[in-house]
């Protein structure tokens, strides 16, 4: 795996990206870190949804990519059930932000995410990257 720059028109900056080389494709060594941030839809950071703020912060720091997954049911440290099915407890539904990048970049981003959250869960695990493409062949 190599790391290369890609130009980004909107910001004019360079994005450090995970790129697979031909030699990497069948190697177990194509490793990256998967950062998962578990928060609620109602959590805010500077009046903005927290999950959105995390994605924007990740983009500002040129992390390889981020995905927001909305959950329909869950509970957290307070053991309070949130579910979309029942109106009264359909507030603050779970949201997971997933970010994949190299260990160095994830480690550097962790304190930033931590500082944005007053509650929630952060996990990091090692993953094998099999493909990372931006659609231009």
């Amino acid at each position, binding site marked *: 795996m190599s790391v290369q720059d890609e130009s980004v028109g909107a910001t004019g900056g360079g994005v450090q990206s995970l790129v697979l080389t031909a030699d990497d494709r069948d190697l177990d060594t194509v490793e990256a870190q998967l950062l998962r941030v578990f928060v609620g839809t109602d959590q805010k950071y500077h009046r903005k949804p927290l999950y959105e703020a995390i994605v924007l912060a990740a983009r500002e720091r040129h992390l390889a990519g981020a995905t927001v997954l909305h959950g329909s049911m869950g509970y957290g440290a307070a053991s309070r059930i949130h579910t979309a099915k029942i*109106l009264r407890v359909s507030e603050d539904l779970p949201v997971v932000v997933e970010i994949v990048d190299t260990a160095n970049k994830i480690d550097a981003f962790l304190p930033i995410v931590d500082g944005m959250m007053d509650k929630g869960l952060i996990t990091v695990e090692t993953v094998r990257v099999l493909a990372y493409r931006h659609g231009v062949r």
Partner: protein
Amino acid sequence: MATRLLLLAVAGSVGALCRYGLSGVVQRAVVAQFPYGTLVVNVVASFLAGLLFGLFESRWPLSTEARIIVMVGFLGAFSTFSSVMLETANLARDGQWLSVAGNLLLQNSLGMVAVFAGFAAAHLLQGGAA
């Protein structure tokens, strides 16, 4: 007319806050995938409807305006038919047909029982007079 609308709005606000509080307390207490919070709210609202209707008829001969403010404003906002339908539809969408049948049955049967219980309570409060 403006006063009536204002009082309706105030009564409705109180009713909505009561519903929000009660349904939240109940739903969090039972921790179930069945809308007990809405069920309890509607049963309590049905009981209050029967009780107040009974009392307004004889013991508290309030004006029509006051009745409308309490029955339409407060109880209208406190009870909720749309939530019942939405939550039942959500259960149906997930194929939980037993819960769908149970919710519709309980909401209607317990609601009706609660209204008659309210009538009976009003009757007792009036000293059992017919």
